[in-house]
């Protein structure tokens, strides 16, 4: 490249190494789906599939025997089931945030990770959706929650936050799926065009929806993408807000809190980024994508984690403050009990993982260290699981009347279903990275310098349609 680098000239950093070309991007990303799967992929895939099988068996046993196979009991009617649900939904938040919100804010660094994050969202939401389905006592009647006209003339109870949940999560899933798929269309077309055998050509051809890369296609595509991004953006806030209503609208001390919606959203973004980080660091190394996903991206993500982690820490502190300030004995007791009661270890695991560990990212050295960020991202994943466990179990296990207080401990089925859901997630993820372009090629190309209209070589390309995505709002 020439010495007169226009990016540098306007005081910005390159998002991608200077030698990256549109071809190298296409090659790097497409290669993963075209070559034979590495051994590592097989190992991860098969073990994940085995865990997913465990999930199937555990759910079968659960359906046959009843909720009693879990550790749930009288004061603690929800436990790992809803903990897992909220955890997975939270993880699913990063996708939309990265794809839609950062898109609208023109955060172009997102292009390297958005596909990845969106896929993760879809799979996390699939895992999350399992739990409301199976946690009901009579899961063969779970469809009563849907507003299906019926001869009994009974509708769902629209006052119930669980119904809001059904709508919120399903909406989120559908919009995320559309958004993800829309973004995939140009890349599917790339894979189709590169295909050397008929099967690949046909399959990718079907998913590419006849994409030819014409100007009109790009125009429509960008409009659709923008609209979907605009629809998705409020969902980032709404889904977890609605999930938090499950708790916030109840009368239980520890649940009945107005801080829950923003607190849950911050937590969701926090956990979502952590999960993206964990997966990204692995795939980046395994598939040699360091050039596309570089330290710049990782550092920016760490900054977001630091921010949201601190927000979450603030929420934890504020819960205590409000409990004390409210003067409500039940409320005070629940929070003191969280920190000092039988589940103190869960509470302090949560604080350590969620509040203390991201503070490491204040240091530039630590937030640019791959091992540190990997460990911290794992910590946050664990911590955010504990957060939901703490909210659900410790609030329920000691509520108003001490006579009904009890304790909770998980059973082997609880654990199997949790591990199984991780298995399902990774199975889907492994299939995704094997068969789909895991990085949004078209979008990454859009942030290359030569995609810009005023690029030094613009004269040479004059008259051609832009090879990749221009800036979204034109």
């Amino acid at each position, binding site marked *: 490249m020439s010495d007169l680098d226009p990016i540098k000239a306007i005081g910005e950093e390159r998002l991608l190494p200077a030698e990256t070309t549109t071809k190298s991007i296409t090659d790097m990303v497409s290669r993963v789906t075209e070559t034979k799967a590495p051994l590592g992929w097989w190992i991860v895939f098969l073990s994940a599939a085995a865990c997913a099988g465990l999930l199937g068996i555990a759910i079968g046993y659960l359906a046959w025997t009843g909720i009693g196979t879990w550790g749930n009991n009288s004061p603690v009617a929800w436990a790992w089931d809803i903990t897992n649900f909220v955890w997975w939904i939270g993880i699913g938040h990063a996708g939309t945030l990265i794809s839609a919100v950062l898109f609208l804010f023109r955060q172009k660094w997102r292009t390297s990770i958005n596909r990845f994050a969106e896929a993760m969202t879809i799979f996390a939401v699939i895992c999350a959706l399992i739990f409301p389905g199976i946690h009901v006592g009579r899961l063969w009647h779970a469809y009563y929650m849907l507003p299906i006209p019926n001869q009994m003339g009974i509708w769902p109870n629209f006052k119930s936050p669980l119904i809001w949940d059904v709508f919120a999560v399903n909406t989120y899933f559908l919009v995320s799926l559309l958004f993800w798929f829309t973004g995939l269309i140009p890349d599917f077309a790339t894979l189709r065009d590169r295909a050397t055998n008929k099967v690949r050509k046909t399959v990718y051809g079907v998913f590419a929806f006849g994409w030819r890369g014409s100007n009109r296609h790009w125009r429509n595509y960008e409009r659709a993408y923008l609209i979907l991004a605009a629809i998705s953006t409020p969902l980032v806030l709404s889904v977890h807000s609605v999930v938090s209503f499950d708790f916030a609208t109840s009368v239980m001390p520890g649940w009945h809190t107005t801080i829950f919606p923003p607190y849950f959203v911050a937590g969701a973004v926090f956990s979502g980024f952590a999960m993206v980080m964990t997966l990204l660091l692995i795939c980046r190394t395994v598939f040699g994508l360091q050039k596309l996903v570089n330290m710049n991206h990782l550092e920016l993500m760490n900054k977001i984690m630091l921010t949201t982690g601190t927000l979450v820490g603030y929420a934890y502190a504020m819960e205590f403050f409000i409990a004390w300030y409210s003067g409500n004995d039940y409320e005070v007791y629940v929070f003191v009990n969280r920190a000092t009661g039988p589940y103190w270890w869960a509470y302090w695991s949560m604080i350590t993982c969620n509040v203390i560990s991201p503070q490491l990212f204040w240091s530039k050295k630590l937030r640019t260290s791959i091992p540190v960020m990997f460990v911290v991202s794992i910590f946050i994943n664990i911590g955010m699981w504990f957060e939901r466990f703490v909210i659900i179990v410790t609030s329920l296990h000691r509520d108003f009347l001490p006579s009904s207080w009890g*304790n909770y401990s998980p059973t082997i089925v609880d654990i199997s279903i949790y591990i199984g859901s991780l298995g399902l997630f990774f199975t889907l993820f492994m299939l995704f990275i094997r068969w789909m372009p895991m990085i949004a090629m078209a979008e990454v190309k859009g942030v290359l310098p030569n995609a810009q209209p005023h690029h030094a070589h613009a004269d040479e390309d004059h008259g051609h349609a832009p090879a990749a995505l221009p800036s979204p709002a034109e």
Partner: protein
Amino acid sequence: MSKRKDYQFSKPAPGMEGKVFWTSLEAKADPVAYQERAKAEFVDGVSGSDTVSSESLRMKRRTFVGIAGAAGALLGLEGCIRRPEDKILPFTRQPEYVLPGISLHYATTARIAGDSIGLLVETHEGRPTKVEGNPNHPTSLGATDGYAQAAVLDLYDPDRSRFPASVKDKAFTDSTFAEVDKGLTAIADAAAKNGGAKLRVLVQSSSSPTFARVEKAFLAKYPQAKVYTYEPISALNTKLGLQQAFGISAEPAYSFRRARTVLALDSDFLGSEPGSVRNAREFADGRRLGSPRDSMSRLYVVEPGFTSTGASADNRLRLAARDVGSYLKALAAELGVGLTDSEGANFESLRSGVTGAKAPAGVPESWIKAVAKELLAAKGQSLIVVGSRQPAAVHALAFALNHALGNVGRTLVFTPSVDGAKAVGPLDEITALAGELQAGAVDTLVILGGNPALDAPANLKFAELIGKAATKVHFSSYRDETSHLVDLHVPRAHDFESWGDHRSFEGSISIQQPLIAPLHGGRSDIEVLAKLAGIEWWRGYPLVRTTFREAFGAGSFEALWKSALHLGVARELTVAPIGSVSLDGAAVGDAIKQIADAKTALGASNLEVNFVPDPGLYDGRHANNPWMLEVPHPLSCVTWDNAAYVSPNTAKELGIANYDLITVKDASGATVDIVTWVLPGQAEHTITLNLGWGRTVAGRYGNGAGFNVYPLRSAAAFGFGDGFSVSKTGGRYPVSVTQETHSMEGRPIAIDTTLEEYRKNPDFAEFRSPTLSTLPLWQEVEYKGHRWGMAIDLSACTGCNSCLIACQAENNVASVGKEQVARGRDMFWLRLDRYFVGTDESNPQIAFQPVGCQHCEEAPCENVCPVNATAHSPEGLNDMAYNRCIGTRYCMNNCPYKVRRFNFLDFTGQVPETRRMQYNPNVSVRMRGVMEKCSYCVQRIQEAKITARREQRQLRDGDVKVACQTACASGCITFGDLNDPNSKVAKAVKLDRQYSLLPDLGVQPRTSFLAKIRNPNPEIQG
């Protein structure tokens, strides 16, 4: 079916005559004959075809339709998934009174917990399903205890013995009743030869006039034979004490309503003592507060371990059972100062006997002085009651004191005993029998009921002695420990299956009317004894009728018999109490001498053990009853087990803690391994052991539940005894409790105060519970019709658990088993919360609080149900639609009272067929995955409304009585229409001590509580 009209063949239409219309070749060939035939087809009763000539082959049209219909129905059945495998037959004639869907109540009586109790049993299509108290019967007054409630499940116990059996080496070979009769005849024949010299019959204690009559006939036939009585929990000490004091053979009946001051000495008169149901009602009546101006009685309790009575005490003194006699002596000495001989009591000998008696160590001075002062102040209105476990001498002294205080005839009366026989000690007869067996003086031993191999005093080694008799017969509902050791086992009919009669302690005579034919055959005690006695009409019905014919006189017998059956009590025969008694001063003096002060001090190596009837299993007879196994011990909340209850300090001293297995050893070296449970309120250095657990052949539910403590129960320590030691085995044992936290954590939950405080501040309860802070979320509903509500008076609750079991029986509530209880999945719709109150960890007060669904106006469960499965009824009930429930359990989370119960597993599918017969057909049996909870007995509300509509009248207050309400002996539960200003419940909720639970949440619970008022003597510390 109406008959079809003959078809009219019309003439051809004009212009059509020429055309030939024909339907078949036959018709065309000979239309006239064809039409005739066609006509004949419809002639009634003839199918018309000439071609079928054989008479037998002819089929009537109706028969054809019938068969075709039946075939069709069979085809339809064939397609069903559930095909009835048994042949069923319809009623060709409806039995009298039986209307499907309408329940019938029959009066009967049963011998329960040492006394008889009058009952009304609800039956559905011939199946007894639910036990209620008989309001006409003085022992019940409409209420029952838990044992009576559970009796109906015993009836359907799948493990009851179904066939007679010959037993050899503990192996049963089923036989028939013909064989049994042969065996009985052989016994009778053999006995006839020598006057029954070697024939011994062991029976359970009986209050039956018929039994007494048959026994007399038996002894008349076999003058040398003997009938011995043994009861592991008996009231004979009381009877013996009474005999010592007044020289009468009688039983005491108390009137707690009239007693202003009650001193209970190791007596659980509200729980396990005879007459407890009546006692509880009367006791509660004596302290029901309508306003602060009302007076209430004061109860002093001196006892080693917590009982229902101790929990209801205003002042309670923890004292080892062995020191109770000494305490009474010291109290008598103090009383002696103020007593005169005025009341006709020969008090001088008594006074000299007790002079100088000292209170046992550790008894505060005030417990003598203040109690004595108050007893003297309440002469004629006080009562000293002594528990049956205490020796006869203590009873004698107490009766003497009652006499001296002028209480006899006022707060207690004596009714002559049924047989008029001289009282003996509780162990005298079994010891005599054991001696005879040992000496080989018994050839034939007939055991009528009971389980002596298990529950006879350990030192007698009765199980071994049974083998000494050549012929041994055991009549028993179960093939139990004793049945294994005999030659012939015969099923004994349940009380609800057989005729009998009973006399209660207070003198009422009532008939035990069977509700159902014996499910598995079986005979009653009187039948067997009558058969042995050679009475020709030995069946229960003629036996009982004969007794009553003799009693009523032949003239008006039928009418009186019918009325006695109908009412459940033969009022004409009620035994009048003994008019006046005179104190046998010398005998009481002797008795006092027998009350010796303890010589050795109790300590870690000299512990006292108390054997008490179990609140669930009693003496072990309900050991296979899942309701009784699962009902939590009222004080410790332990289910499915018994435990060694020790005080916190003693536990510390012994180095034992909850879940530790310990070995309890008596002076003779007998040991029992049992789990420890620390129970505040237990006297130091005492252990309370509940009888009846640890059965090995009780049945599928009871086997292996708990620990058998009978091996420690020797004659020396039959009620209690010292000289026990404890060592840790090192093992641990899981215990399932329904309540793990025992303090209210300073929250206003079960609110109580003292009478004094209440008079100063009548509305303290409302004051203590925080005020409503939130506005209703939704527009409030106005209830124009009924507005059902409940009020629970905590002042009267004794924690007897009968409401829990009544609720379970009424509402088909499942028992879940020990493991599930440990997981917190018990299904009690109504639970009894128990809190320890006060700062002294070893000597707390108790607060009981029955908590069922509060039926909130702004029910938090209803808002959150995603499928509208729980909703408000127009009468304000919080209803559950089981069919709609999908089991998200959100309602359970959001219920601040945690009264919702979830079917975590299939708790009902495995219930055996016989037990299903107990199900109330008016209440759905819930499947797994469904939420359930207290419905305010909505089925009873509906039934009452239907009845009222049929009778074309308004619903009256009292028409609807919910199950817990009817069972409650002390009458703490009031239920009715809050919109009816004159209803009892509407009045109850207006009382100043009314409060609702957690009112600050704004859920507006329908159920109200009336705060508990205690009446402690301020002069007594602790």
